[in-house]
């Protein structure tokens, strides 16, 4: 019997086992998944919880429900991978041996990595990148009476790089609807030069901040947070004061990745960006947010990569060359408030561009343009996530990015 071991039953890990189980004969292969949490969170929902759009209980289901038969789900915390011995040790001492290992342990926010950030967490400092954080922020916003709201990104890369902008747009809409907007001053603080990572989208999104009266403080690398004086301090000694800080803490991969000697400076597993195979071990892959591929850390990237990965994996275990290179395709709905949204579609080489995104039988969606249809696309996505994506069923979307419908006039 050959053993496939998967570390992490989040978005990527769950999709991987659902796609691989039917392809690997049960007489020849066992599949085991390890995760420390019994609950599967619909992470795109974290954005909506603070504004009361989703209730916390609407975005969580038991992980076991998404495991196909023939896959063992082991609850436990990984201590380390010993890649030279093809085994994984859990914190409770359990040893799990493997022939092939897939690391799908994601990325998590680390407020303790920035001096002062954790001091007032849950008070005047909040985050929405965890279930608990999003829930606590909902409680805070329910009674907050206004003041200086600062939305802040600590350092790139972060999971879902558009989420902080979406939060900002939704906050603007939320306070407007509450009749509080004139009592709230919103500032968007980012280590990037502009609103987003890529130039064309950055300009569109930057203009959208402007028209909403939101100030942008760019090139801001936070050194510390003075929780008592309520201000962010940058390495070049700029200060931004807040009454309510919503920060995206430093994101890092799992600590066991570092303990196993498999990670880069932020604990991301170093892999080939086209095949997701480890640079150093021929029987270790990293998928989803856990890898260091230069793509957005996002469910859509994990999904498109997982459309190609099973084919590559099957060839690799037979000693054949992997023939379906991943292009870094990402596709993100961006909520902009008042029932509208944007859509962006891009990959390693092509930045998000305006135009149309064709979708047979349903679309087209407009790219980089606020429409109600894009909002509904995002709303529907929760159902698709639970019922189509996680179980590994096919969506009628091409895995690789297409230039069809995109306008290139804005490219210099």
């Amino acid at each position, binding site marked *: 019997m050959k053993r496939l071991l998967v570390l992490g039953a989040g978005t990527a890990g769950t999709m991987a086992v659902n796609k691989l189980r039917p392809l690997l004969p049960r007489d020849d292969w066992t599949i085991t998944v390890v995760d420390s949490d019994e609950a599967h969170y619909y992470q795109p929902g974290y954005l909506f919880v603070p504004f009361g759009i989703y209730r916390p209980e609407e975005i969580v289901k038991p992980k076991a429900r998404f495991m196909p038969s023939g896959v063992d789900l082991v609850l436990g915390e990984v201590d380390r991978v010993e890649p030279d011995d093809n085994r994984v040790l859990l914190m409770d001492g359990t040893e799990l041996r493997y022939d092939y290992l897939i690391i799908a342990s994601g990325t998590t926010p680390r407020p303790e990595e920035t001096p002062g950030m954790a001091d007032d967490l849950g008070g005047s400092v909040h985050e929405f990148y965890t279930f608990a954080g999003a829930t606590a922020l909902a409680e805070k916003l329910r009674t907050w009476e206004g003041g200086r709201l600062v939305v802040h990104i600590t*350092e*790139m*890369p972060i999971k879902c*790089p558009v989420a902080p902008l979406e939060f900002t747009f939704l906050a603007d809409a939320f306070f407007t609807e509450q009749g509080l907007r004139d009592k709230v001053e919103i500032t968007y603080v980012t280590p*990037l*030069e502009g609103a987003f*990572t890529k130039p064309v989208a950055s300009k569109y999104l930057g203009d959208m901040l402007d028209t909403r009266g939101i100030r942008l403080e760019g*090139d801001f*690398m936070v*050194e510390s947070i003075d929780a008592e004086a309520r201000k962010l301090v940058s*390495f*070049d000694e700029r200060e931004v004061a807040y009454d309510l800080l919503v920060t995206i803490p430093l994101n890092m991969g799992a600590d066991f990745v570092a303990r196993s000697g498999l990670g*880069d*400076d*932020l604990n991301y597993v170093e892999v080939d960006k086209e095949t997701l195979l480890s640079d150093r071990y021929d029987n270790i892959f990293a998928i989803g947010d856990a890898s260091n591929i*230069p*793509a*957005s850390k996002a469910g859509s990237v994990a999904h498109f990569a997982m459309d190609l990965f099973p084919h590559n994996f099957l060839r690799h275990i037979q000693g054949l060359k992997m023939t379906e290179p991943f292009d870094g395709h990402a596709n993100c709905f961006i909520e902009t408030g008042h029932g509208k949204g944007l859509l962006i579609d891009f990959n390693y080489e092509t930045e998000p561009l305006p135009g149309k995104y064709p979708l047979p039988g349903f679309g087209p969606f407009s790219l980089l343009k606020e429409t109600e249809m894009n909002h509904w696309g995002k709303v529907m996505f929760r159902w698709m996530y639970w019922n189509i994506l996680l179980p590994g069923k096919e969506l009628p979307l091409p895995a690789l990015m297409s230039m069809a419908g995109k306008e290139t006039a804005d490219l*210099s």
Partner: protein
Amino acid sequence: MGMATIAGKDVHVNEEGFLTEFDEWDEDVAAELAKNIEVEMTDEHWALIKWLRADYQEKGETATTRRVQTAGGVPTKRQFELFPKKPAKKMAYIAGVPKPKGCV
């Protein structure tokens, strides 16, 4: 993409003026690039620039400010003092390596 003459040498540059050919870099070119962005080069600057090039050769990508701190041993705060406002971009520009990614 285009050509530029820097320190009397014809070199390939991109639209932001970054060298695109690793091997077209030399210290004279670097000194002029530093002048363009008003960085006064000291031994400490040179050591960091040379480390950045060596690291790029080894890893195939430009070190982020975080990596310059953890692997290169220069604290982020010091990087901001040596290359004010935008250390990652300025170091890469002078070192003749691409802007660090990190931003995806």
